[in-house]
């Protein structure tokens, strides 16, 4: 039942804020998001580390077809539920010094987005998953297209059509799988994801279903060569929308890989998994190289995110327990880091009105707080040991390396390149002589600091004691490995 609350509460709060919000919408949204965080935190800490689905609910939806409203939290989803609950309040808080026109609509859309994301990560029915997967797009599209930059209309439109296009193929695959399921007590077929796992599909069917799912998720993440919508969308969107996109929404893709592709079409993964890893590794290197050349901070972070997510995809397709564990914890870590980085860019933009690296410099001199937080976020991003990025990337690289040494080596460049572009960004913006734009730079306000503090805490918590997070995912991942093909290599 807690899951139902986690999904419904933000939706109800959003509706209320939309109609009654007025000028107090900001505070109301923060309050709602914090309440949601408390629930998500409760779910996380009282989660029993086993492979079962907990806090679940299950109602008939389209009874005669055997389609059910069914959702719950298991080891695969628990970290993402935590991430969604954790990030939204601080994304809301990060807007406290900005004014957006029509605040009631703005914050209502953010909370709607949260409701849809919670639904995606907890759905146990294939069609319910699809519904939330698509529903999450509507609020983010409006957020980006109503409050975005000058070029927002064509850019967000491309994003919308691109992603919908991908997920339509997934819909076909889901309908096909649905018709393969054996009759249940109530209906001729069942759309429960757990029933999809049990199917014995022909190799031919597995191959096309693999691609139907892969294209949907690859566009969402994005994986090379489906990434062309991403940098522009990230840059044109208002920063809170970018944070939602990069921090949470791209995890929908990685989550989908783990939840659907690996257990449902193991033969398809066996045939095409290597292609997928190669695409991901190309994305890692390609994204990193482009990131090194960027002048715009937001665009740089966008490409870095593209590069990082490639590693997660590669880790998942390595079909190893380590790779999978790494992907799960890296999703949490990356969400935290990328939101922090985008917030840094936003803070700098709000004071200097520019994100161009060559117009910045010398900010450190007047901003001890910002410098420290920026540095910590950055170290997390470049995967320094004892920060959150290290745990995930280490496990992921280990997974890819076990799968294929050369690919593991190539993927390892992410750490070197990551350090290059991140440190270059830090150096160009924070060090050096001050420019006309950065002369009167003021340090963080209290509300801005409060965005960073919890993120910093999480960076170190995950980095120093990852066991808290790994232990909840471990049984579920081990359970998932049972469905995966014979090539799977176990950690132990």
């Amino acid at each position, binding site marked *: 039942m807690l899951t139902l609350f986690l999904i419904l509460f933000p939706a109800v709060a959003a509706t209320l804020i939309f109609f009654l919000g007025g000028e107090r919408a900001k505070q109301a949204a923060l309050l709602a998001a914090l309440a949601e965080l408390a629930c998500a935190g409760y779910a996380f800490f009282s989660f029993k580390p086993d492979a079962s689905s907990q806090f679940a609910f299950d109602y008939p939806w389209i009874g005669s077809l055997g389609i059910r409203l069914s959702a719950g939290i298991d080891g695969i989803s628990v970290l993402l539920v935590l991430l969604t609950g954790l990030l939204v309040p601080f994304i809301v808080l990060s807007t406290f010094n900005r004014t957006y026109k029509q605040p009631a609509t703005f914050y209502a859309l953010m909370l709607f987005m949260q409701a849809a994301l919670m639904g995606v990560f907890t759905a146990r029915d294939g069609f319910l998953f699809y519904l939330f997967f698509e529903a999450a797009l*509507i609020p983010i599209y409006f957020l980006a297209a109503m409050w975005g930059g000058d070029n927002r*209309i064509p850019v967000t439109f491309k994003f919308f059509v691109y992603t919908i296009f991908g997920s339509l193929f997934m819909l*076909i695959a889901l*309908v096909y799988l649905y018709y393969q399921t054996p009759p249940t007590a109530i209906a001729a077929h069942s759309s429960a994801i757990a029933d999809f796992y049990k199917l014995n599909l022909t190799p031919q069917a597995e191959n096309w279903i693999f691609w139907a799912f892969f294209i949907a998720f690859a566009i969402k993440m994005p994986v090379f060569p489906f990434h062309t919508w991403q940098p522009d969308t990230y840059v044109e969107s208002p920063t809170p929308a970018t944070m939602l996109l990069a921090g949470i929404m791209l995890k929908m893709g990685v989550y989908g890989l783990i939840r659907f592709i690996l257990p449902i079409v193991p033969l398809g993964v066996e045939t095409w998994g290597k292609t997928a890893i190669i695409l991901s590794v190309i994305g890692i290197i390609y994204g990193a190289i482009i990131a090194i050349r960027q002048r715009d901070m937001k665009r740089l972070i966008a490409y870095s995110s593209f590069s990082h997510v490639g590693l997660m995809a590669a880790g998942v397709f390595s079909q190893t327990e380590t790779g999978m564990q790494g992907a799960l914890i890296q999703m949490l870590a990356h969400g935290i880091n990328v939101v922090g980085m985008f917030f840094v860019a936003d803070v700098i933009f709000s004071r200097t009105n520019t994100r161009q690296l060559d117009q910045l410099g010398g900010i450190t001199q007047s901003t001890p707080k910002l410098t420290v937080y920026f540095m910590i976020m950055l170290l997390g991003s470049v995967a320094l040991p004892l920060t959150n990025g290290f745990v995930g990337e280490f496990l992921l690289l280990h997974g890819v390396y076990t799968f294929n040494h050369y690919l593991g080596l190539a993927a390892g460049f992410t750490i070197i390149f990551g350090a290059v572009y991140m440190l270059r960004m830090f150096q160009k913006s924070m060090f050096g002589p001050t420019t006309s734009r950065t002369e009167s730079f003021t340090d963080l306000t209290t509300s801005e600091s409060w965005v960073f503090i919890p993120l910093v805490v999480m960076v170190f918590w995950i980095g120093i004691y990852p066991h808290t997070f790994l232990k909840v995912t471990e049984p579920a991942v081990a359970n998932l490995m049972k469905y995966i093909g014979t090539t799977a290599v176990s950690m132990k």
Partner: protein
Amino acid sequence: MLPIVLLSVFGIALLFLGFMKSKAILLPATLLFLLITLAVNFLDWNKTYLYFNDMLRVNNLAMVFIAIVLVSAFLVVALSGSFIENDEAQPAEYYGIILFSLVGAVMMIAFENLIMLFVGVEILSVAMYVLTGSDKRNLRSNEAALKYFLMGAFTTGIMLFGMALLYGSTGSFTLAGIGGYAANQQGLSLLLYVGLLMLLIGLLFKVSAAPFHFWTPDVYDGAPTIFTAFMSTVVKTAGFAALFRLLSVSFVGVYNFWWTILAVITAITLIIGNLTAVYQNSFKRMMAYSSISHAGYLLIGLAALGAQTKQAIVFYSLAYSIATISAFGVLLLVAQQKGTQTISKEGVSTESFDTFNGLARQNPLLGFAMTVSMLSLAGIPLTAGFWGKFYMFSTAVERGQIWLLVVAVLMSAVGIYYYFRVIIAMYFRDGATEPIRVAPFYKYVLVAATILTLGLGVAPGLLQGLF
């Protein structure tokens, strides 16, 4: 078969009401008549009757389709308030013709004998020709009516020829008789196949499937908007009900013959409808091509005729009708405010996409209603349109027609492009729109349509009692 009787009587009554001085009574009277008919329609629920010497067969499915047609008509009539203020308009005649045309729709839905199908199609079509040309001083309205009439008459001839051939080969006009003959499957007369094809051409013309769609954009564009809304919903629903009954009762035996033909027509319809809609600048023409494309989606269910088809067609036509009426309702208001009347003297169309620029800012309700209906037509989840597409796609998957599905999916993505142009114009573009005064009754209709679309989108199981 009370609906037919009632609709005829009410239609005549309306014509007489038109002699009264005040026109104000006509609209509520028509709505009341429609509600009465809707209630009476369900009297036969869970029973199957043959009426008029086995000419009509009424079963649950027919009642559901009749209900959809009546609800569509109700919503359209409810949006037609502007007639009363317009001196040129002849509301009594319009409403009378609408009720008469519904008689034709009911016959098309419930026919058991091909003669009834023909009579139904003709009653509905002739009424439509008249309504299309009802804007007498408008050149384009006249052109549309003439075009529609000429092409319609021509295809009706083909259809009649087809029926004659079917009679020649099977010796029967009844669905059961033809079905009994076709079920033999062997040694079937060639005339049966030719007759079936000609009959299909006639009906596919009515639902504007490609390549029989050429009349659609001009007619939809030229006709007064309110009648475009009527045409694009009632005619389509009745046409698909007739097609479904014809194919599922009489021609299951020769499925292997017609399904490929229908599937190819489906693919062509989807491709032409969607790709051409992209290039339109007029909202009304876009809706015309969109209606062609929706005919394509509905045809998927027929080409993959199976256990799911019934449910799919009912759900899809309902979702499509509600969304279309709501969209045309908003267009009516906006176009009126911009100066073009539905029954205009100048006949200049300002119904382009730009008309909607900045609409949502001053008129959040209109913007929201339009957005929901566009999302539903585009088949985005949480709207009824999504489940319509879902059911349609399911039928094709069940039959294993994956190639058709891939076409449909690609075209759905194209569809998003032109439906979102409206949303983009309303929310993200600037335009000098003042708040539009919306009559309370009008508001209820739009709100009801929006709630229905969203409600069916969240809980599609609600309609289950109907099957």
